C-alpha cells in the first residue's frame, strides 16, 4: 500500500542513511533523557506521564534502526534508477536558495519589531525579487494588490490585531495607519 506521493524519493544506501539514523537516535535519546523530568507514577495513573512518550520513543528508535538495517541489506543490490529522483543537492544558485530560506525568517523576526504594515509590503516585494521575478512594475502592482487585500480583509473588515511593532518609530507609523484604516 506504499504509494509514491510527491515526496522526492531518496537514494540507495549512502551517507544519508547514517545521518538519518543518527538524527532519529539523537532525538530519541534526548527525548528519553528529558522524560526523566516527569517520570514516575502518578496518584491516578500508575504508568505515569512519561509512559506514553517513552513508548513512542522506543518505537521510533526501533523503526529507525530497522530502516537503517533495511537499507544496509539492500546496499549490495544494484540501485534502481528512478527518473523522478530528486536527491538533496544544490546545483549552483546557492545564494538565491539561501536567500529563499532566510527571507521568510527575516520577515518573521521583523514582524513584531517593525510591525505588519511595514514588514509585509517590503517582504512581498523582496521575496518576489529573490525568486527571480524581474518585471519591477508587475512586482510592485501585485504586491500592492496583495497588501490591499490583506489590509481590507484582516485589518479593516475583521479587525484582526496584527503586530504593530515594538520599535517606537515604526510603532507610531503603524498606529497612524491603523487609525486611518478604522
Amino acid at each position: 500500500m506504499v504509494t509514491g506521493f510527491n515526496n522526492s524519493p531518496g537514494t540507495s544506501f549512502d551517507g544519508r542513511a547514517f545521518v538519518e539514523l543518527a538524527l532519529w537516535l539523537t532525538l530519541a535519546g534526548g527525548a528519553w533523557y528529558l522524560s526523566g523530568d516527569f517520570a514516575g507514577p502518578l496518584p491516578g495513573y500508575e504508568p505515569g506521564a512519561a509512559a506514553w512518550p517513552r513508548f513512542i520513543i522506543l518505537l521510533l528508535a526501533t523503526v529507525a534502526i530497522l530502516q537503517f538495517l533495511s537499507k544496509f541489506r539492500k546496499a549490495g543490490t544494484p540501485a534502481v534508477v528512478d527518473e523522478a529522483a530528486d536527491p538533496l543537492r544544490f546545483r549552483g544558485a546557492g545564494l538565491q536558495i539561501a536567500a529563499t530560506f532566510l527571507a521568510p525568517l527575516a520577515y518573521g523576526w521583523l514582524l513584531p519589531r517593525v510591525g505588519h504594515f511595514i514588514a509585509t509590503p517590503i517582504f512581498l516585494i523582496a521575496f518576489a525579487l529573490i525568486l527571480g521575478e524581474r518585471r519591477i512594475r508587475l512586482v510592485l502592482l501585485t504586491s500592492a494588490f496583495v497588501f490591499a487585500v490583506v489590509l481590507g480583509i484582516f485589518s479593516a473588515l475583521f479587525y484582526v490585531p496584527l503586530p504593530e511593532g515594538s520599535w517606537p518609530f515604526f510603532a507610531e507609523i503603524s498606529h497612524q495607519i491603523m487609525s486611518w484604516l478604522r
Partner: protein
Amino acid sequence: MLENFIHGFLLMVSDPFTMLLFFAGLFGGLVFGAFPGVNSLTLCAIILPFTASLTPSDGIMLFSVIYCSGTYAGAVTAILFNIPGSPENAPTCFDGYPMTQQGKASLAIGAAVTCSALGGMFSAVVMMFATPLVADVAVRAFGQAEIFALIFFGLTVAGTVGAKSVWKGWLSVLFGLFLASVGTDAAEGVPRYTFGSYYLRAGIHFIPVILGFFAVAEVLIQGQRIAEKLRVPPKVSVEFPSFLTFWRLRIAIVRSMLIGLFAGILPGIGGTLGSFLSYGEAVRWSRNRERFGKGEIEGVVAAETANNAASGGAMIPLLALGLPGGALTAMMLGVFQIHGMEPGPSIMMTSKDLVWVTFVAMFMANALIFVLGYVETKTTVHLLRIPFPLLAPAILVLSTIGAYSLRNLIVDVWVMYIAGIAAYFLRKWGYSTAGVVLGIILGYLGESAFVKTMKLYEYDLSIFLTRPISASLILLGLATMVYGMVRR
C-alpha cells in the same frame, strides 16, 4: 422529516439577513479555503467573537456553512499547489498534485467538487434522519477502547501511504505522535517537554504546523527549483470529469461516503482520519494500486468524498451529545456557549428551529458547492498561470497572518517557519508530512483514550483484544502493517 425540512427552509429564506449570512459563509469558506495559507479555520477563529451579536441559529448556521464550503475549497489548494486548505485535505495532495503536474488539474478539481458535494449531501440527509439515533448507537458501541483501536488502525494506514517506504511512513507518524506529547499528559495534566514555557504547556498547535509543513515547505521546495532552473510550470486545462468516470468509481464513492460519515460521527476523530482511512481503503481495494500517488483520480475521489461526508457526521455528536469532533466543531460549541446554550439530547426539542435551519443550510451549501464548484473548476485552474515568484510571497504572507491570527502569538509564526524548514528536509528525504500531521492531530486523543481505558479496566491490556470492535480494529491495523512490509 419533510415537514421539518420545509419549515427550516422557509425560516431560512424568509429572513434576508439569514440568507445574507448563508451566502457570506458559503463564499467566505470558498475564498478562505481556496487561498493557500489561510483556511476555513482561520476565518472561523477570526469571526468567532462577532457571533455574539448574531442569534444562536444564525451563528451555528454560519459556521456549519463555512465548514462545508471550506472543506471542499481546501481541496483546490491541495490539488493546485500541494498545500491542503485543512488537514482533511492532506490525502487529496497525494494524487491531486501529481494530476496538476500532468496538466489534469481541472479533472482533479472537477472530481473533488462532485464528490465533495455528493459526500456532503449524503451526510446532511443522514444527519436529518438520524441525528439522535446515530449519535446514541455510535457512543454506545464506541467506548474509549474502540476509539483508541480506531486511531491505531488509522495511524497504521497513514503510515503506509504518502512516504517513500513503510519505514519512513511509520517514522513520520511516530514523529507526529512524539510532537503531540509536548504539552501536558492526558492523565493528570503533568507538563512534558515544556522547558518551563507557558506557551508549550498548551501543546503545539496543529494549524501553524500544517501551514509550515505544507505552505512554507512547498514555497521553499519550489523556490529551490526556480533557483536551479528545474521548475516546470504546470499546464492548465479546463476539462471536467465525465459521468462515466464517476460511474466507474461508484463503489469507491459509496465506500468513502460511509467511511467519512462514520469517522465524522465519532467524537474527536473527524474528517482528517476519515479521509486517510478512505484513501487507504481505495488503495487496498484498487486493481491499480501502483497508480496511487502518481495522479490516480480515485485517490482524489476517495479523500474528498470522505472529508465532506464527515462534515455532516461531525454535526451529529455535536448537536445530539454536545461532543465536538474537531477544531471547527469545537468552535461551534463556543458559539453555543457564547449564547449560554448547551447542545445535547434535548436540543432537538428545545431548539428545533436552530437544528433544522442548520440542517437545511448544510444541505443547500453542499448542493450549491456543486454549482459553484463547476464554475470554480473552470476559473481557479487559471491561478496556475500566475508566475510562482508572484504567488509565493502572497502564500507566505497569508500563512503568516493565518498562523498569527489564531491566538495572536508571534511564537505561532515561528513554529510555522521551523515546521516549514523541517518539512523541507522530511519531504526531500521521502518522509510523509501528512503522516506527521495526522500523528500530531490524533496523538493526544489516542493517549487520552488509552489512559481512560487503562484506568477503567485496571491496566489490563488484553481488553483491546477481548472487545469485538476494538479487537477487529487492532487486528486490521496489524494486518495493514504486515501488508505494508510485505509489499514494500
